[in-house]
């Protein structure tokens, strides 16, 4: 069945350093991939989305490239800020209104 795997449960970094949060997926359909960010006690919000192979998508300093050959959609940022501390979810749409979320990666940015 369809699924999303996020390998890091917790990532702790110092402000200004680069980050990459891993996301791989499994689906038999044409994939639609998303990254959502959830700050403490808030609802998740869309950060990025893509369905185009090998095309980089960017928003708010974050970027990701969908690679269908490796079934990956890793999230990156070149320089993290304190305000980036949040829970990040990778999600997959199966094209039939079913959305599969990964377990989430908690990003903690320290001064």
């Amino acid at each position, binding site marked *: 069945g369809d699924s999303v795997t996020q390998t890091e449960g917790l990532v702790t970094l110092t402000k200004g350093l680069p980050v990459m949060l891993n996301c791989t997926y499994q689906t038999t359909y044409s994939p639609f991939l998303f990254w959502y960010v959830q700050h403490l006690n*808030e609802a*998740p919000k869309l950060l990025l*989305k893509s369905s185009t192979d090998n095309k980089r998508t960017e928003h708010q300093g974050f970027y990701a490239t969908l690679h269908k050959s490796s079934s990956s959609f890793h999230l990156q940022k070149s320089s993290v800020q304190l305000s980036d501390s949040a*829970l990040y979810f990778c999600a997959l*749409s199966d094209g039939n*209104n079913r*959305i599969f*979320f*990964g377990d989430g990666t*908690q990003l903690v940015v320290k001064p």
Partner: protein
Amino acid sequence: AQTIHQWPVAEIKAVGSPLSLGCTIKGKSSPNLYWYWQATGGTLQQLFYSITVGQVESVVQLNLSASRPKDDQFILSTEKLLLSHSGFYLCAWSQDWGNYAEQFFGPGTRLTVL
């Protein structure tokens, strides 16, 4: 602008008691609607989705049910709560133009079952 409202904000209920959570979308006609459950600090589990009034599809079985009595309203309910029902319940909507649509989440309802 579209707004999404969930009620109540929080609930503390006893095991075995009934539950009804509500969600209303304003400013968007015929949205796709979704219910999600989230354990504290955990992943989002899609529970139900609805693409039109009166039609609801179940994604997982958690002894919960959902209904869409109006175009802008989505209700989540159960007749008998379990301890495992505790968590954060999120309603979401998306544009009715395909499956690449961004999901817009409501503020959520925090449920504690004792």
